[in-house]
């Protein structure tokens, strides 16, 4: 990774984050004033940063590092998948589901309840001696404006346009009293979140094939050049699909749903102990 700082970029045109790619090459602009290129075959990153970007801790933490791992990760043994990860008493939980179903609000509620937050939107998976490990990047939890009805903490914040163009609150988990954050966990269980109009929370066992299909169907399309990256991701998804998995159908608030998950963990762990 070759990073150059150039003060001439301090006067560059202001523009939002913008990325494009073709085959193994990816490049884009990162505000403020910076430009970055990725060569995924040669595993090489070259960036020119404005001094404002280089000196800004949040630029590295919230933009450059997560985006670099997201783009380059699969070629260096770390697979990004769209799900949240939390941990309770050594049990790593993955929260997956379709877009807009409420994964982040549930993640915030579980964090508020005392589960350790690993990641919200994206979780990065690797294998260490054939054991699956989930990684987070200490990123904030992204909540859509309507989440304010469930979290008083949001009243002090102002939503802003996030990287994908959505208006959202980006919440430091430390805002929730008693919350803890870690950057790694061993995933043990998966919950697929589904919203229903019927009150209550129901856990239904989910077949391994459905887990496999969901993660394959929702993974970023990779070009033919990145054959090793595709194989690694397929391997990680195969391993994930062997984990115990439940569909969680809920018509309740995030707080009530998080309470149901916590009871479910305790009861299931007790039953299997």
């Amino acid at each position, binding site marked *: 990774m070759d990073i150059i*700082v*150039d003060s001439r970029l301090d006067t560059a045109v202001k523009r939002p984050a913008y990325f*494009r790619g*073709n085959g*193994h090459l990816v*490049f884009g602009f990162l505000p403020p004033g910076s430009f970055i*290129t990725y060569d995924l075959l040669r595993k090489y990153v070259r960036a*020119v940063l404005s001094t404002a970007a280089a000196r800004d801790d949040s630029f590295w933490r919230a933009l450059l590092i997560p985006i670099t791992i997201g783009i380059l990760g699969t070629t260096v043994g770390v697979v990004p998948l769209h799900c949240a990860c939390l941990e309770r008493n050594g049990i790593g939980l993955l929260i997956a589901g379709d877009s807009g179903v409420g994964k982040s609000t549930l993640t915030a509620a579980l964090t508020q309840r005392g589960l350790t937050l690993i990641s919200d939107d994206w979780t990065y998976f690797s294998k260490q001696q054939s054991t699956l490990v989930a990684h987070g990047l200490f990123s904030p939890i992204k909540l859509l404006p309507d989440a304010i009805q469930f979290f008083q903490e949001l009243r002090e914040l102002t939503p802003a346009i996030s990287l994908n163009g959505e208006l959202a609150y980006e919440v430091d988990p430390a805002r929730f009293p008693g919350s803890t954050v870690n950057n790694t966990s061993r995933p043990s269980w998966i919950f697929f979140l589904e919203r229903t109009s019927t009150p209550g929370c129901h856990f239904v066992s989910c077949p391994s094939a459905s887990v496999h299909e969901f993660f394959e169907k929702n993974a970023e*399309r990779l*070009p033919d050049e990145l054959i090793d990256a595709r194989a690694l991701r397929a391997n990680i998804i195969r391993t994930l699909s062997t984990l115990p998995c439940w569909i969680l159908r809920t018509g309740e608030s995030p707080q009530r749903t998080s309470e149901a998950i916590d009871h479910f963990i305790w009861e299931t762990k007790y039953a299997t102990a």
Partner: protein
Amino acid sequence: MQPLEFSHYSDPLDLLRRFIQTPLKATYRLHGARVGVETNDCALLPELPLDADLTGPCTLEWKLIRDADSPGLLEPPMFLTSATLTVVAMGTACLLGLDHEARKLFAFIGTDIDPATFQKYLVPFLCRMTKDVLSGDPVGCFVSWSNDSAHV
């Protein structure tokens, strides 16, 4: 010929737009080499001599993608060069990447770049990049990032 209407490409699993289709194809003779061009906009087919020989592999390939979500006009070019790659950004209106070893060039070109601007400014630029790659001097006379930049 009327230019095509370009809709906004939307594929949540292809945020980098790697898979925009480029069904229009032509082969040109440039600096004594065969250059294959693929694009999704006939206005991006360069006004260069076509290659009459329809057989045989191309020496270099251009993929020119019209991108409805790349706004703005051309800005002064910014270069990032290495032994294997040349990347040029002219604002979001035009981003170019050239892999010297694979001999593949691709460009995202915004809809604000009209055909005349493309033919007058961008085509000569692409030809220059091609010539430098073919001559084994891919960074050629392009202005590389200055040596006084600090490494962190």
